[in-house]
């Protein structure tokens, strides 16, 4: 990696200050970067995918690694909470089992021990072409998405623009399904937005995967109280350690008569952003979950899929995951 300056932030404000100045005309991959666990950032730096002159350490900010009750039955999760701390948290396990499942599905125990919630949300895609320094793909300012016409077995089946990456986060689909919000801090202070508006498609900005401006950081995620059941089913090619070929975050609230009052289905591993499927959700409302209803919802969810040359298998695979998730929540 290139030489860089290391700066320990003492507060959120100091972190934002240390990330300045930002050159609006500059290459986004050459800006100062915040670091949590560094599991993605350091490997990206070693491959020269990002070349920050300064790395700002968020782990020195007191309190940012805490999971706290929000007083209304929900949770506030600091950006530097590790993935291990997240799934070992008793409240997370009791109230949001799907979130605990998503956390345990991530990477390896070693990575979960240091990787953070903020880092998981902000990690860069795993597309082979993007990760190779010698390939100047569209996400790195080049002219072409090589995956579109190349080896795209792991790429997107929903079309969201000129790059065919899939978003690699496991927490993101689950948090969106749970109706989470995220707090962003920048030079103009803090703002809290729904998590489902945080991620952006290549159509919006092909160089980025979220709305963070350079110099901004994620400080906290809020998960509101819910009586709904939740689960996260992730399909990995290699169980020991892998990113999702496909995943589904499902949150279902049942009425007393076992009919569905509300459902949220967000897919991972299939699009450049966590992929929300409202039509499938609506199809379940007022119904009990049966094999047929679950299958119908799954079919609806994938109806607009546009697979590439080598990833059509993701359609039946994702349908299966949706079906199984719904039936699991019904049990």
């Amino acid at each position, binding site marked *: 990696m290139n030489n860089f300056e290391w700066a320990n932030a003492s507060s959120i404000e100091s972190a934002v200050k240390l990330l300045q100045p930002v050159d609006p005309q500059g290459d986004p991959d050459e800006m100062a970067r915040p670091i949590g666990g560094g599991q993605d950032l350091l490997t990206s730096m070693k491959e020269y995918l990002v070349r920050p002159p300064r790395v700002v350490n968020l782990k020195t900010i007191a309190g940012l690694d805490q999971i706290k009750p929000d007083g209304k039955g929900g949770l506030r999760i600091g950006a530097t909470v590790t993935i291990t701390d997240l799934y070992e948290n008793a409240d997370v396990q009791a109230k949001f089992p799907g979130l605990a499942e998503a956390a345990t599905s991530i990477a390896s125990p070693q990575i979960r021990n240091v990787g953070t919630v903020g880092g998981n949300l902000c990690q860069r895609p*795993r597309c*082979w*072409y993007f*990760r*190779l320094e*010698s*390939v100047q793909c569209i996400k790195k300012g080049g002219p072409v998405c*090589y995956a579109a*016409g*190349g*080896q795209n*077995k792991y790429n997107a089946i929903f079309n969201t623009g000129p790059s065919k990456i899939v978003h690699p986060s496991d927490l993101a689909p689950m948090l969106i399904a749970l109706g989470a919000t995220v707090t962003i801090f920048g030079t103009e202070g803090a703002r809290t937005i729904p998590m489902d508006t945080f991620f952006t498609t290549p159509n919006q900005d092909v160089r980025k995967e979220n709305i963070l401006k350079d110099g901004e950081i994620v400080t906290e995620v809020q998960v509101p109280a819910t009586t709904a059941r939740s689960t996260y089913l992730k*399909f990995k*090619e*290699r*169980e*020991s*350690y*892998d990113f999702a*070929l496909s995943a589904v975050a499902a949150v279902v609230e049942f009425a007393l008569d076992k009919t569905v009052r509300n459902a949220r289905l967000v897919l991972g591993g299939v699009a450049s952003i966590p992929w929300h499927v409202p039509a499938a959700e609506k199809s379940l409302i007022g119904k009990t979950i049966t094999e047929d209803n679950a299958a119908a919802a799954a079919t609806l969810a994938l109806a607009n899929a546009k697979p590439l040359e*080598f*990833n*059509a*298998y993701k359609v*039946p*695979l994702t349908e*299966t*995951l949706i079906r*199984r998730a719904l039936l699991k929540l019904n049990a």
Partner: protein
Amino acid sequence: MATKTIKVPKMLNGAPTGEVDTIQVEDYGVATWGPKTKHRLLNTHLPRVDAPNKTTGTAIYTHDVKVPGMLHGRLVTSIHAHARITSIDISAAQKIPGVKAVLPIVAAGGEVIYEGQAVAAVAATTPEIALDGARAIVVKYQVLPHVVTVDDALKPGAPTVGRGPGRGGNGQGNQQQVEAAVAACDAVVEAEYRTPILHHCCLETHAVVADFRGGPNATVYVSTQATFGIPGDAQRELGVPVTGVVTHMGGGFGSKGGGIGVVGQWACRLAKQLNTPVKMVNTRREEFLMTGNGPGSLHKFKAGANKNGTLVAISTIQYGMGGIGNGGIAAQPYSYVAQNVFRQSTSVNTHEDSSVPMRAPGHPQACFAMESLMDELAYKIGMDPVEFRKKNLPNNANGTAWHRQLDAGAKAIGWANRNATPGGGAGPLKRGMGCAIGSWGGGGRAQCVVDVKISQDGSVLVTSGSQDLGTGTRTYVRAIVAEELGLDMTAVVEKIGSTAYGNAGGSGGSTTTASLAPAVKDAAYNARIALAKLVAPLLGAASADEVWFDKGQAMGNGKSIPWKQACAAVPAAGLSARGQFVGALSGNGAHGASFAEVEVDTDTGHVRVTKMCHVQDGGLIMNRLTAESQINGGMIQSLGMALFEGRVMDPALGIMLNPAFNDYKLPGAMEMPELIPIIDDGDERNVVIGIAEPANIPGCGAVANAVFNACGVRVRETPITPDKILNGLIELRRAKA
């Protein structure tokens, strides 16, 4: 003289009674293994003598070697599959403080013919500065047409690789006649099977420390499979006599057989230029791209069998994909016999690094293809796949071994309970079983010299230049000597891995143990006889013949003295004995059979191997524990080949897309099935035969066949990934509809 009588003190409750007893001992007058069942140490389960060091991290590997004043080397490698270098500008690199030397490897005007080919080398005071230096070298390329897939390479007018097409196929048999015989059979299978280029994935990448300081000699440390391959290569570069050293090794699997390799050559050249030691270590990416691959393969079969289970005719056209190398693949019909055989084997060159040996070169590929084909034929004629295999084995000792192993493996896996109908049964989870067989040479050669030295203080040292590839060489070297001298394992010290010790061959073809163990035995035997001569007077024995060593005692003539006391008879300079290869102690010809049980989720395409067993013969087993480890390792490696591993190339860009462990997927802990290693004790040969490579041959075919038995999908290209299974299931449903 097979047995002899030794007079020993009669013991009662651990104390001598003063009377004389006799014992019968085996002694043949030459170095001999003795009966297989009567070993005290050999053929038992011996923990590795280096296990504590390895597990606590104190074992030194070449990656750990540091010598005073050492510089760090780094390569610049080609980013293109095929290009002409128009210019190399090293001036910026030379200006970086800490960069000590920059050497162009390919001159301007020269060509590179694969991604990862070394283009320039840098030496600097730290690895980080060396990397900065390497990146500061500006290489300009004129990109030339490339070809990186077998299909593209076989097209007319495909770009030429290297010096020429290099595609000379060799044929055997009459294709027309054989294919006519195929067509006349009850059941015919025409199919293509493919395997991608595989990687050795040594956890220790290739590494060298060239300790040359401008003096009259040098020491070169290499992570290599051939200690004695170091001096020749290194002396050519350094111009002075070289001592080669191999410390502990983090794996080779065939990739570290070729002398000092590219990093060795350039570490030596940099050291020579600077009169300063240079260390050079391949990065993981370089390891994937430039240190040699296990070749891919393409097999085109037409084969026919009759309903009685006879494999009648088989026509095979086979391509080895070894990049710029030869990519040799074992000949078909591999383990089986057929009345009519046509075979043609061709090497297909692509713009990729050269194939090198990889754990049973060419065999796992040929075995996967042939065993899949045999399975397809067996199902077509409705015969039990094990029975069909048995019917087509050679009628000789090889066939006898496989019959025995197929029976043993079938019993261990529970073959009788296997899924009767592929894809049958309710629910998405389907279980299935498969099998396959393989063979290998594994014989020894006259190449090792071993020395045993017994000192006056009773210490015993055995030395050999041989490297320990990780198979447990140190442990059996020590065990052979300890057993021969009647000592505990802890009473013997072994030193290996240096050209300062006796000559030894490279580890290739699973020949190390079969070559080295007989020489160790010979040295130990010679040491025992020499010591017996010296000790006889202490016991009052008339001759060495009356002396025996057991339980840490020298005994004879009705007396017994502790080992250390007996060694007082050794001269001050110690007793030295040398051993050479003894052909009668070594054999050739290993056979194995693998069985696998898998569970396939037909809704997701996920394959879980639930159980795997491998039956392996190897004559006399030196150490059952490490032999079983070898068998386990072979099963794991073949499971990886079956389900996960393979180089992925972008045909248009000509580059490898997965040169990292995140993307070149090795099986991990969660992928491990119940592993059942079975040493075939039905093998009566009382000679040492290598088993390291054969344990890796049939497992892949067994898993592939189990997948078919489970879900009815025949995946003809490894790795058998979920996408291929799901696509196969869709095709099956379409065919049924």
